[in-house]
C-alpha cells in the first residue's frame, strides 16, 4: 500500500460518524421510521457504528440489515476475477420505511445502482437515502449521496482505503496510489 495521505484518523472517524448520525436524525425527524442497511463489507461496520450513535442520541435503536448486491452487478462479463457472493441479511419488512443505505466509499455509483435494484426486490420502501463515509468523485451513474462524511477529490490513479477495527487493525481513511 503506497500511502499518499492519511485523510481521517481514529478521532476524526468518531466525529464524522457522530455528525452523520445527527444529520440522519435531523432529516428524518427522529429514528422512528428509519432502517439502516449496510453494504458489505465495510458499510456493514459503518452502519453498526451509526446505529450505536443513533441509539445514544435518540434512545431508540433502528433496525439494521446487511445487503450483498453482488448478484445485481453489471460487470460479470468484463471483470477478470469472479466476485465472491455472500448472504443478504434483511429479515424485517422494509415496506413504507425510510432506508438509509450506508457504504464506505462512493466512486462510480455502480454498486449503489446494484444496491437500489436489490432493495427494490425486497419491497417498496417510502424513501432510500444514501450515506457514505467518503465521496471520491468520478461518477458513471446519475447517483448522489444524501449524507457525506468527507468529499475527497481524487485522481483515477488513486484509491481510497477505509480501515475499520472490526476487520483491520485501525480506524482510518487513507489516500493511496493505485497499484495498477
Amino acid at each position: 500500500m503506497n500511502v499518499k495521505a492519511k485523510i481521517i484518523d481514529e478521532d476524526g472517524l468518531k466525529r464524522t460518524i457522530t455528525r452523520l448520525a445527527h444529520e440522519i436524525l435531523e432529516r428524518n425527524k427522529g429514528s422512528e421510521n428509519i432502517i439502516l442497511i449496510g453494504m458489505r463489507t465495510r458499510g456493514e461496520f459503518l452502519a453498526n457504528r451509526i446505529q450505536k450513535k443513533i441509539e445514544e442520541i435518540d434512545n431508540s435503536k433502528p433496525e439494521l440489515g446487511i445487503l450483498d448486491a453482488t448478484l445485481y452487478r453489471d460487470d460479470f462479463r468484463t471483470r477478470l476475477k469472479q466476485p465472491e457472493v455472500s448472504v443478504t441479511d434483511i429479515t424485517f419488512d422494509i415496506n413504507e420505511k425510510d432506508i438509509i443505505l450506508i457504504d464506505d466509499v462512493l466512486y462510480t455509483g455502480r454498486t449503489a445502482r446494484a444496491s437500489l435494484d436489490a432493495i427494490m426486490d425486497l419491497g417498496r420502501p417510502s424513501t432510500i437515502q444514501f450515506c457514505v463515509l467518503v465521496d471520491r468523485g468520478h461518477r458513471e451513474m446519475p447517483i448522489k449521496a444524501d449524507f457525506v462524511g468527507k468529499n475527497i477529490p481524487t485522481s483515477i490513479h488513486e484509491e481510497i482505503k477505509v480501515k475499520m477495527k472490526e476487520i483491520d487493525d485501525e480506524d482510518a481513511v487513507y489516500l493511496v496510489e493505485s497499484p495498477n
Partner: protein
Amino acid sequence: MSLNIKHLLGLKDVPKNDIQLILDTATTFREVLERPIKKVPTLKGTTIVNLFYENSTRTRLSFELAEKRLSADTLNFTTSNSSTKKGETFKDTVRNIEAMKIDMIVVRHQSAGVPHYLTKISNASIINAGDGRHEHPTQALLDMYSIREKIGKLNNLNVCIVGDISHSRVALSNIFGLITMGAKVSVCAPPTMLPKNIEQFGVKIFHDINKAVAENDVVNVLRIQLERDAGNTIPSLREYHNYFGITGDVIERNNKDILILHPGPINRGVEISSEVADGPYQIILDQVTNGVAIRMAVLYLLGTMN
C-alpha cells in the same frame, strides 16, 4: 474466488475447494429463495438448454427453476417431441442447438459419458444432470449441502448409502463428493446390488441394516430402480423391504439421532416406510428446496466465469 472446473461432469475429480465454494455459494441463493421476489438478474442474457434424453421430474423442474430465478433464458429439449424420432443423431442435434447461440447445456442421458462427450463437440459449459449409472453431481451436492445445513459439518461424519448401489449414479457421486469432503462413507445393500470392488473407493460395506443405522450419523436411502432391472437382483420387493427397508422400528431400535435422506422419487413401503418418509428423522423435502439453491450456485459459478 472462482471454480477450477469449467464443466460439472461429475464429482470424481472436483477438488475440495470447488465443492466448498459451491456449498457456500448455495447459502446465498438459499436466502434469495426466502425473499418475496425470488429472482436476481445475475444471468440475464445467458441462454441455457436443458437437454433431457431421460425422464425426470425433480431434476428438470429444479434446474429450470434455478435458471429462471437467475434470469437466464431457458430452452427445454425432451426426446419425446424432438427430431430424434426422425433419425437425427445426437451430435447433429447438439450442433444445431449450439448454432442458435447458447451458453450452457444441462444434460441428462441414459448413457454414461454423454456429458464428457458433449464437452468435445460443443463450446458451451456442460452440467451433468445424470448420465446412465455413472454420476449425478448436483444431487450429491444438494445431499451434502442438506447434511451440512442440518449437522453443521461433513468432515469425519459417518454416512451410509443404502440400496441399489450398482444401478445408482446418486451413490457414486455421493461417494466421490463425501470422501473429498472428509466424510467416512459406507454402503449397505444385498451383495447382488453392490458393484464388484466397491471397496476400492474407500467405502465400508454393511449387509445388515440394523448395524448400518446404528453405526452412522446419516443414512441416504436410494430408490429401488425397477426401470433399471433391479427386479433381477432381489427375490421380491417385499423381501427387500423386510431386510433392508428403513422403518420406524429399525430407527427406534438402533439410532434415534440418525438423519435420513432420500433423493426421490420414493417407493413407499419398499426402501422406506411411509412412517419414516413423513416422520421426524428425514429431510426429504428440505433436499428438494436446497436442490434449487445448489443448482443456482452451480449455474452462477459456471455461468459468470470468464
